[in-house]
């Protein structure tokens, strides 16, 4: 071949053409799979919400969601009401679970914007669960989750997830041994909102004391744990005016 692949012009042209071809190929792939991925995320959200209120296929030690094909049916069966909260009032909205918490938090930086706070009410065995979505920062990236409370503001179950915490350390917030500790924990201390603190060395490693508003931290994941603490404090607090009205 007589083409001079060493010349600068050729190199630049080649690079430009390569970027163009690869770029359009990836754009095409992303665009054609977008619908499916979004649908997966929606199903995952429903699974997460149901998981927090105890509707799951858990066996010992592992996290098992209900099967994908039953999600829509179970979601409408167990989640009886969906609200958008404003202060102490709640407005019904049956698409509240589609509200993007991340975007709402971004928009709320503008003081004139009233943040929409979704809340899901679940019913299982004649017991009501109030499921609050939370979102915060871990060590590397976002962390989020769902907290299911009863009307006395005792945690009935949680689900946590993360975008990029360290595998084996911070990523363990989505493991059973961590999430299960929150069950039964109070978020009020002497009637005042306290949240739940992920705490190191509280001499209660099995989290038997449920009224201390503390759970045992994961070794090697201090910053992720602090992120969970901050996330619960900040986001649950926004719902407190409404949640406090539940008792009456």
């Amino acid at each position: 071949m007589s083409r001079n692949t060493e010349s600068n012009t050729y190199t630049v042209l080649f690079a430009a053409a390569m970027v163009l071809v690869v770029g359009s190929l990836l754009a095409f792939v992303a665009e054609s799979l977008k619908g499916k991925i979004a649908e997966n995320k929606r199903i995952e959200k429903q699974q997460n919400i149901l998981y927090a209120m105890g509707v799951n296929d858990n066996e010992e030690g592992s996290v098992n969601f209900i099967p994908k094909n039953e999600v829509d049916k179970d979601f409408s069966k167990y989640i009886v009401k969906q609200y958008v909260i404003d202060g102490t009032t709640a407005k019904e909205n049956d698409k509240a679970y589609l509200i993007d918490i991340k975007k709402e938090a971004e928009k709320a930086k503008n003081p004139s914007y009233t943040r929409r706070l979704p809340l899901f009410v679940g019913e299982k065995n004649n017991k009501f669960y109030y499921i609050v979505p939370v979102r915060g920062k871990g060590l590397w990236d976002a962390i989020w989750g769902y907290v299911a409370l009863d009307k006395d503001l005792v945690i009935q179950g949680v689900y946590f997830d993360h975008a990029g915490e360290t595998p084996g350390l911070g990523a363990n917030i989505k493991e059973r041994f961590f999430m299960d500790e929150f069950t039964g924990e109070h978020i009020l201390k002497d009637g005042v909102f306290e949240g739940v603190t992920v705490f190191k060395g509280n001499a209660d490693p099995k989290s038997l004391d449920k009224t201390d508003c503390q759970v045992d931290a994961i070794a090697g994941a201090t910053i992720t744990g602090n992120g969970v603490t901050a996330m619960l404090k900040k986001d649950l607090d926004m719902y407190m005016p409404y949640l406090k009205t539940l008792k009456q």
Partner: protein
Amino acid sequence: MGFLTKKDLKLITDPLADNNPITVQVLGICSALAITAQLKAAIVMAFSVMFVLAMGNVVISLMRNIIPPKIRIIAQLVIAAALVIIVDQVLKAYSYQLSKQLSVFVGLIITNCIIMGRFEAFALANTPWKSFLDGIGNAAGYGIILVIVAFFRELLGSGSLFGIKVLGDSIKKTGIYAYGYENNGFMLLAPMALITLGIIIWIQRSKNTSLIEEN
């Protein structure tokens, strides 16, 4: 002329044992340690690498005469990255839970030394068909080791294979747990993957002494 000549066949079988990318060339160790706690994840990883390596090898080989030598490493990276993104998106669309489990490691296929190694050492100098076979062979060699390590880690660490509890229930104390057997949680951590890998390398070299380097 057969479909596969003897030489072609060697391209596939060589990396499986005597020129294995993990145990002999010691490439791609990071992912071999990270995702071998479960068999299912290891197998998906092996097939993802196989797709990226075989397709990448073919593309690089087709372009081997037009890639400017000055930016050939960048060109290889772009092609590997594009293929990895495709794998990642397809997994997200068709196997969402698994893609969550593999988390960052699919993205990290780009940094798998085997991929750049084969692009640079083989695909740039050989025809597309040979490169394709070379890619399949090397990825299979990588995959075999992954599966062997994952088999022992999942069996001894969680007492299960493909998530099925083959040894009985460790909480209800059925199966061999009734006789006081316990799962070894240490098997699930990365250090034990390295030790398992070391044992495989040891066994392989004691069987085939020609692999042992002379000092």
